[in-house]
């Protein structure tokens, strides 16, 4: 098993009512598996919300395998400016 830290911002924070989650996954789990878990926990509140994935504070273009201790964020549309 591995444990990852999921940081939650904006609509993700609002949907899950928390800014951080510790989630245990099977070894070899990937970012898309984790995204499905997050969306399921949101109980429909993230339906239709596009999420970009960042691992250890960097955007990743594709699905990657997660490692123990990774920091993951599913980033909803940004709104700076």
């Amino acid at each position, binding site marked *: 098993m591995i444990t990852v830290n999921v940081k939650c911002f*904006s609509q993700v924070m609002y949907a899950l009512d928390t800014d951080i989650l510790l989630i245990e996954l099977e070894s070899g789990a990937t970012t898309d598996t984790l995204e499905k878990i997050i969306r399921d926990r949101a109980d429909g509140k993230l339906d239709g919300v596009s999420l970009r994935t960042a691992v250890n504070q960097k955007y990743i273009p594709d699905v990657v395998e997660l490692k123990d201790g990774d920091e993951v964020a599913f980033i909803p549309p*940004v709104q700076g*400016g």
Partner: protein
Amino acid sequence: MIHVEIINGPITPFPSDNSHQDDGAELVFNGRVRDTEHGENITALEYEQYEGMAEAELRKLAEETMQKYPVHNLFCRHRVGKVNVGEASLHVAIWTKHRKEGLEGMSWFISELKKRIPIWKWAIMEDGSRIPSECTHR
């Protein structure tokens, strides 16, 4: 030269002085908080960042802008925390030899900032409630 920072507090503008002798154009942009969000009155926006990643991405974007356009200096300050209506949340200054590349570089930098820098805003409504500014789950 690049100078980017994310600050929690009022923005002090970058100085406009006579030291940029190779540059014929100095462009300054201030983004300010409007009094409505999606047609509803607000009192402020509260900006949230992904601490660490937001400033790193902002620096990367500034570097890309200077590779894409002949910009000599790009300075940017972005606020986080509560920003009242009318106050500046974003301040950008760019120096270039000619105005055309400065205007294009400024436009591209701000457009990209709005697409990729992990900063979000929460609307503070007149009743004091706080909601993600794009959220429909009120």
